[in-house]
């Protein structure tokens, strides 16, 4: 996936300009930056939920729009939604269905496989709203995996989780990246964790990208060293 000189924003307001970066297959890109720096807008644009104001976003060969997996931030509606875990995970397979109204056996099997991978297969018949925050996130991650085999986009996946669940979430995501070769693009507040797991970092500042490069380059650049000198705050 390539972004060339992309300008992000809404109708009248430019959020960020001149973004250029490339994500190769198998990369783990972490997008960090302050609130309001346009991380979520970038994500929406990558997902084609809104068009870029300028520039272009290209999906690489063999990657189609309907093959993206997305883990959104949870909405208020979802927290008390009466649905079983199985129903939610299976809904990730819908992009394979097209106009066909029902699931095939292979799609049910796929959903089952991903539930097992996420360690939530025993919860399949439980109601989503009764689960803990960490379990809910794993349900949504399993759904995203049903929708993709290649590229996973995560929008602040650890928001609202306790430290243990946060660690488990990070481990799951890195394992998916390392073992299954799934490309990961993740938005995060947590720079320390991003630096630990990611292969590439995109640091967004006000209206522009401050840094894009590999993890090693980031560790050597001012943003990281300066941050450490100032005691952690960026």
């Amino acid at each position: 996936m390539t972004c060339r000189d992309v300008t992000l924003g809404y109708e009248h307001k430019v959020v960020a300009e001149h973004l250029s970066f490339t994500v190769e297959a198998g990369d783990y890109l972490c997008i960090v930056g302050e609130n309001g720096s346009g991380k979520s807008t970038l994500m929406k644009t990558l997902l084609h939920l809104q068009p870029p104001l300028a520039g272009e976003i290209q999906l690489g060969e063999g990657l189609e729009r309907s093959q993206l997996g997305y883990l959104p931030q949870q909405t208020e509606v979802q927290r008390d939604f009466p649905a079983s875990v199985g129903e939610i995970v299976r809904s990730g397979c819908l992009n394979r269905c097209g106009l066909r109204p029902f699931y095939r056996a292979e799609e049910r099997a796929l959903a089952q496989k991903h539930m097992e991978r996420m360690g939530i297969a025993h919860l399949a018949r439980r109601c989503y709203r009764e689960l803990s925050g960490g379990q809910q996130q794993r349900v949504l991650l399993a759904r995203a995996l049903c929708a993709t085999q290649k590229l996973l986009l995560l929008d602040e996946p650890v928001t609202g989780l306790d430290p243990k669940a946060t660690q488990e979430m990070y481990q799951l995501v890195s394992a998916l990246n390392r073992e299954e070769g799934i490309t990961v693009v993740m938005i995060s507040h947590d720079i320390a964790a991003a630096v630990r797991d990611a292969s590439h970092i995109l640091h967004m500042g006000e209206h522009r990208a401050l840094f894009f490069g590999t993890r090693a380059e980031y560790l050597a650049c001012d943003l990281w060293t300066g941050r450490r000198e100032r005691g952690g705050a960026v």
Partner: protein
Amino acid sequence: MTWLNTLLDYLHYPFVRYALVVGVLIALCSSLLGVTLVLKRFSFLGDGLSHVAFGAMCVAGAVGVSDEMMFTLPVTILCAVVLLSGGNRLRLKGDAAIAMMSVSALALGYLILNVCSTSANVAGDVCTTLFGSTSILTLTQGEVWLCVGLSVLVIALFVLFYHKIFAITFDETFATATGMRVRVYNLILAVVIAVIIVLAMNLVGSLLISALVIFPALSAMRLFGSFRGVMVCAAAVSVCCAVAGLVISILAGTPVGPTIVAADLAVFALCALVGRLRGVRA
């Protein structure tokens, strides 16, 4: 068993049979859609659209359109489409838009009815349209067939798009991001809702449609934790309440719409109690 005999006597009249058939179908359709509406935080859409339909009906009566439904249906569909799939810009102010449309349609409808009506009993007409006190008992055979046809269409669409409806209800963003044509499905949903509301006006009248849409869904959500469970339970609750309400109103001579709603309310109270006892989080 005198009441049973009375009931069997009544069932010999075609208008009672029509009322039962139409009542069950409308209850079924509105409960299915109700689950989606309640979960999408659009509970008041039913109320708003029913007032729009009331306004349209008044206009149709004043202009002298022979078949009121042919005028009411398109107008209501249009409003539903504007409200439900008018894009995010409009949806941010969803509740205000619904309230505005609902109140103005109600007011204008009554105004037009008052100014143009040829009937001597305007207040009686309004009461009938709003509370549907007798209209379900005065259905013609043609209306019953129209209702059957549209209900079958609604149920068929619902079964075919069941999983898609689940996806856009649970998470519209994810559905869009993974390439589903969410706008198309929202459009279908809006049309179906409008059809059901125009149909339901015959049964319970404009004011009580909300109850028919909301109560079964809320009752079912107290008891079940899966989408399919809620759907099935809502449909069952709704049909049972409609039949019970109709039978009671025939036997006791109470107005049909309010009786059905009272039955819905009673079942909701029961479900809430059972849900509380079983510890399912509301």
